């Protein structure tokens, strides 16, 4: 691996670490996100107001999802996993 590629590899790892650290910091920073996320409790029908909002759906913008899938399908070696795949393309 060339020196330049090692540097890129290092930069990517640094970015990954920064994101992971950011999540941990948020968790410790009084937001208690991890506690809130994994605190599994029974949810009554009248407690689902937040979950009914558009932005709380697992796919909240189907058009954007389809467009992004297409972009990354045409620029990366792997694809799929989110929804059953649609049509292909001869993307250059």
């Amino acid at each position: 691996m060339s020196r330049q590629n090692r540097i890129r590899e290092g930069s990517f790892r640094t970015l990954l670490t920064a994101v992971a650290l950011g999540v941990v910091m948020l968790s410790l920073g009084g937001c208690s996100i991890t506690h809130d996320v994994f605190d599994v409790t029974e949810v009554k029908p009248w407690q689902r107001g937040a979950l009914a909002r558009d932005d709380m759906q697992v796919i909240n913008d189907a058009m954007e999802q389809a467009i992004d899938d297409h972009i990354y399908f045409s620029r990366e070696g792997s694809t799929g996993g989110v929804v059953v795949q649609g049509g292909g393309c001869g993307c250059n």
Partner: protein
Amino acid sequence: MGRLRQQLSAASCALLAVAVAPANAEQSGTATSQLAKARIWEVDTSYLSYRESDQRVSVGKAVATLVRDRESGAVTVSAVHDTMSGASPTGALRSDSPASTVTSVSGGNSRNSLDYSRSEFTDTRRQLGVGIEQELSPRYTLSYGGVVSDESDYESLGINLSLARESSDRLTTLTAGLGWIDDSIYRSDTGGTPEPLGNVQRPRPFSEGKRQTVDALLGISRVLNRLTVAQLNVSLTASDGYHSDPYKVISAADDDDRIVANFHDSRPDSRLRGSVFGKLVHQLRDTQHSLHLSYRLYQDDWGISSQTADLRYRHRLDGQQYLEPHVRLYRQRAADFYQRNLTVDEGSNPVMPEDGLASADYRLDALSSVTLGLKYGVKLSRDAELRLRAEYLDQHFSTAVFDRNSAVILQASFSIGF
């Protein structure tokens, strides 16, 4: 091509029939169905500009989606029109020597240049799709649909079917889906495909390539608490047929990158792909700000494995507006048969791969990719929304001839319900 145009026309008629049929059914409905007639139409339109640096590929994408939402389900009709142009890397090494010849990529013109590592092209792609969601019972929902797509060198027809089952407490949803895709692949100039690993200067055109793909997905989503939803998908995709790229080539060159010859791309005739995808959607306590965090682990039998992490944070500015920063990280290992170039022996003869497989397509190289983006959304009225998005994609490749690719993505979307 003509065949697909007919299919597109037939599909258009079928879509119109599907969209109209429920309306007729409703007109003859009972008093109950009249009461349940919460008929809602939604139109979502979007224009996206994708521009790579160094005058590589540019794409203009227009999308229109029409959704008719009813008590018992929904019908979605979508149309996509892409215009693509630019100079795409062919896989050939950069060279000032006229010894090598590479013909251009889809819809392109041969170019009188000494460097064949990139090739100019223009193309147009049209796609038409329909999706129907039908509530079979309060707990079971069936979804099915089809997509046809047409460009100067590619035709694709896909159908899909999935069944979702909600638990009695409506907190867990199980989904099973199946998809089938039939693709036809050919060069726009010859109408066929080149001989795999054939010398580009002695072309032996084969017939058009055919590929069938079956996609299976099992998913579970679960409400963890009143602020969080989790999703886990496992998917398996098997494809059989022509998988090479009829425009990509690989150079055979000596240690100083002097090209001896260029050969056409040659990939396996099947591919098995598997992935595990997990997602968490969470609303921050005492706010209306939400997080979407996802992770995908992917592996296929070409030797490519990848990891993708994606984080979106929607920050509500007020009741009408939001900002959504986005970061996506991706990395992959190279395909087993990926090579930057073929080597030559002491007699300057190309050393051909024993298994007959070789590709220098940069997308099969080891790569890392970062996307940073920001979206702004505003409700213009109760039923109308405007969304603006800007993203920057930066890719680094391990050994590919062009070891970097960056792109700016701009998108404007407008949706309205009535």
